[in-house]
C-alpha cells in the first residue's frame, strides 16, 4: 500500500479550519501514548500541558510575554519567505537590535526624559534592519547565499554582545559581573495592565505589526509584488518589479521587526543587557512563521500555541515531574502533526494498493 496525494482543484476552506484541530487530536493521542509509556497519567499530563497555563491571569500575561517576540519576528520573516528570501538569522538581528536600542540607557544613563523610550525603539529597529542589510547586500551585490551569511552573523552578534557586557558596557556598580546597569525608569517599556501581571507593550507591537502586515500582504500592491517575486522571479521581472529591491525590502523589514522584538524584550521583560537575552526566539520564530502558514494572522495563533507549549511544559515538569527532555520531544511531535495535517488543505490523501492504482490509471486513460 502506498500513500498518494491528489491536488484539490481549489484549496479546502473546510480543512484549512479543521486541520489544526485534527493535528491537536493526533497530538493528544500520541502524547497520551508517550505519557502512559513513561508511567504518568496521560489525562493529567495533557491537562497540565494545555489547560493549566490558561487558568490564571498571571499565566496569561506570561503567555503574552513569551509570544510577543515570537510573533513580531515571525511576521517579518513571513514577508521574507513569501518573497523567497531565506533569512534565518533573525536571532542575530534580534541581538543587534537589543544592543543598539540599549545604547541610550547604558551609555548615557543621565539622559532621562520621555524621549528616551521612543528613541530606543527607533534605534533598535534601525540596528536590526542594518544588520539584516548585510546579507541582503551580499546577496544582491555578490550573489552570496543568504541562508549561510545570515546564520553566520547570528554567532558573530552573540559574541559581540558577550564582549560588550563583559567589557566596555559592564555595570560599574555591578561587582564586575557580566551585565549592564539596570535601565532607568524612562527606558523601561511599560506594562500594559500592570495591576494583574507583567505583559508589556511588546505584545501590542506584535499584534499591530501582524495586522499591518496582513493588510499589506493581502490588500496592497506591495503585498502582491512580494508574492509574485516569491513565486516566479521571471514573472515579477515582466511585471516591472525589481528583485533586488525586494531583497532589501524583505530583509530590512524583517530585520527591523526582529530588532524591535529585541529592544522590547530587553527594555520590557529583562531591564538590562546580559550575555544571553534570548532562548532562541529567532529560530523558534521560523517554526512559528510556517506553523502560521506565512499568514500574519495565522502567525499570531501559532505564536500563542508555541508559547503555550513552553508554559505547559513547565507546568507539567513541576506538577507531575515530566522531565524537560520529554517536554521538548513532545513539542517536536506537536509540530510534526500540525505540519502534516496542513497538507490536507491543498491535497486529498489516498491510500492505494497496487491493483487499485492500475485501475485508476485505466480510468484516467
Amino acid at each position, binding site marked *: 500500500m502506498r*500513500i498518494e*496525494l491528489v*491536488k484539490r482543484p481549489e484549496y479546502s476552506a473546510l480543512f484549512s479550519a479543521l486541520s489544526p484541530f485534527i493535528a491537536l487530536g493526533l497530538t493528544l493521542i500520541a502524547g497520551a501514548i508517550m505519557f502512559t509509556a513513561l508511567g504518568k497519567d496521560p489525562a493529567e499530563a495533557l491537562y497540565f500541558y494545555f489547560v493549566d497555563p490558561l487558568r490564571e491571569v498571571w499565566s496569561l500575561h506570561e503567555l503574552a510575554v513569551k509570544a510577543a517576540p515570537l510573533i513580531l519576528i515571525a511576521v517579518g520573516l513571513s514577508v521574507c*519567505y513569501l518573497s523567497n528570501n*531565506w533569512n*534565518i538569522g533573525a536571532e542575530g538581528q534580534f541581538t543587534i537590535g537589543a544592543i543598539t536600542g540599549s545604547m541610550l540607557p547604558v551609555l548615557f544613563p543621565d539622559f532621562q526624559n520621555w524621549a528616551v523610550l521612543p528613541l530606543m525603539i527607533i534605534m533598535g529597529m534601525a540596528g536590526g534592519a542594518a544588520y539584516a542589510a548585510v546579507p541582503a547586500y*551580499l546577496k544582491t551585490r*555578490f*550573489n*552570496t*547565499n543568504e*541562508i*549561510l*551569511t545570515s*546564520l*553566520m*552573523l547570528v*554567532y*558573530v552578534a552573540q*559574541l*559581540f554582545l*558577550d*564582549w560588550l557586557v*563583559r*567589557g566596555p558596557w559592564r555595570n560599574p556598580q555591578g561587582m564586575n559581573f557580566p551585565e549592564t546597569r539596570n535601565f532607568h525608569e524612562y527606558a523601561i517599556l511599560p506594562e500594559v495592565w500592570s495591576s494583574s501581571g507583567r505583559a508589556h507593550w511588546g505584545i501590542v507591537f506584535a499584534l499591530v505589526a501582524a495586522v499591518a502586515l496582513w493588510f499589506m500582504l493581502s490588500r496592497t500592491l506591495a503585498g502582491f509584488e512580494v508574492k509574485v517575486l516569491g513565486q516566479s522571479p521571471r514573472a515579477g521581472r515582466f511585471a516591472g518589479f525589481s528583485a533586488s529591491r525586494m531583497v532589501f525590502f524583505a530583509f530590512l523589514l524583517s530585520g527591523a521587526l526582529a530588532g524591535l522584538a529585541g529592544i522590547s524584550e530587553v527594555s520590557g521583560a529583562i531591564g538590562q543587557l546580559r550575555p544571553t537575552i534570548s532562548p532562541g526566539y529567532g*529560530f523558534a520564530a*521560523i*517554526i512559528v*512563521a*510556517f*506553523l502560521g502558514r506565512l499568514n500574519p494572522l495565522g502567525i499570531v495563533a501559532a505564536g500563542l500555541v508555541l508559547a503555550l507549549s513552553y508554559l505547559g511544559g513547565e507546568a507539567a515538569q513541576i506538577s507531575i515531574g515530566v*522531565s*524537560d*527532555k*520529554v*517536554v*521538548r*520531544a*513532545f*513539542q*517536536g*511531535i506537536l*509540530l*510534526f502533526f500540525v*505540519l*502534516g495535517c*496542513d*497538507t490536507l488543505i491543498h*491535497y486529498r*490523501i489516498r491510500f492505494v494498493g497496487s491493483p487499485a492504482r492500475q485501475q485508476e*490509471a485505466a480510468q*484516467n486513460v
Partner: protein
Amino acid sequence: MFEDILITIATAATPLLIAAIGELVVERSGVLNLGVEGMMVMGAVTGFGVALTTGSPWLGVFAAIVVGALFSLLFGFLTLTLVTNQVATGLALTLLGLGLSGMLGESFVGQPGIKMTALHIPGLTDLPFVGRLLFGQDPLFYVSILLTFGVAWFLFRTRPGLTLRSIGDNHNSAHALGINVIGIRYLAVMFGGACAGLAGAYLSLVYTPQWIENMTAGRGWIALALVVFASWRPWRVLAGAYLFGAVTIGQLHAQALGIGVPSQLLSSLPYLATVLVLVLISRNRRLTMINTPASLGRPFVPDR
C-alpha cells in the same frame, strides 16, 4: 608538535565533514533538511549507548548509522510524501532529536565511554613527522576521506549520480523522463541521516568519548553552512571543514600564546572567515549558478 596540531585540526574537521557530505547529497537531490543537528545528536547518544552496553565501538557506529537513517525517514515521510515545508520540518526534527536524545541518554550521563582505537600499522605509523598523521588516526577519519571521494565519484562520474543531480535541478522534467523522483529523494534523505548519525557517533566515540546532553553544540548547523559554502561540491566541503577546523584550533593557539585580543573576537573568526570566503567564491555568478540545485527546498507532487 606540528603534527599534533594537524591531527587536532583533522579531529575537529572530521565530524563536520561527514555530516556535511551527507547533507550535500540530500541537497543535490533538491531537498533541504535543516534537521542535521537533531539527527547528529541522535547518532551520538545511540553510538555511545550501544558501544557502552556491548563493549564494541564498531557496533555503536553501526547502530548510530541505522538510527540516523531511520530518524531521517520521519523527515522524509513528512516532506516527501506529505509535502510539508522542508525548512519548518527540519527545524522540528532538530527539536525532537534534542529532546529524545536527552530522554534516551539519561542513564549514560557521567559514565566514561569507549574510545575507538586509532590505527596502528607497524613501521608506517612510526614514521617521523607524517607517520601518525597519515597512518595513525582513528578509523573514521579514513572513512570520512573515502566518503568524500565516493560521493564525488558517485555524483559526477556515475549515471545514478547524474540522475540524482537532475532531480535536484528540475524535478518536473526528471519526473517527465520517468524517474522516480520521490523514491530517489527518500534514499538521499536516508543517506544524509546515516551520515549525520555517523558524525554524531564520531563525537561520542572518538572526539570526546562521553555522553552529555546537547553535546553536538551547534555542529550540525556548521555542517549545513559548509554545504552552501562549498557550493555543493564534495571536495570543497572537505576544504571548508578543514579551514573551519584550522581557524577554530588556530584561535585557541593564539589565545594560549597570550596575544591579548578579546577571545570573543577570536571565537567569531571562523564564522567571519566562512562569510568572507563565501563572498569571494560567489562573486563568480556563473559558477554558482551551475552548482546550485535549482529545485532546492521546493515541494514536489507528481501530477498524473
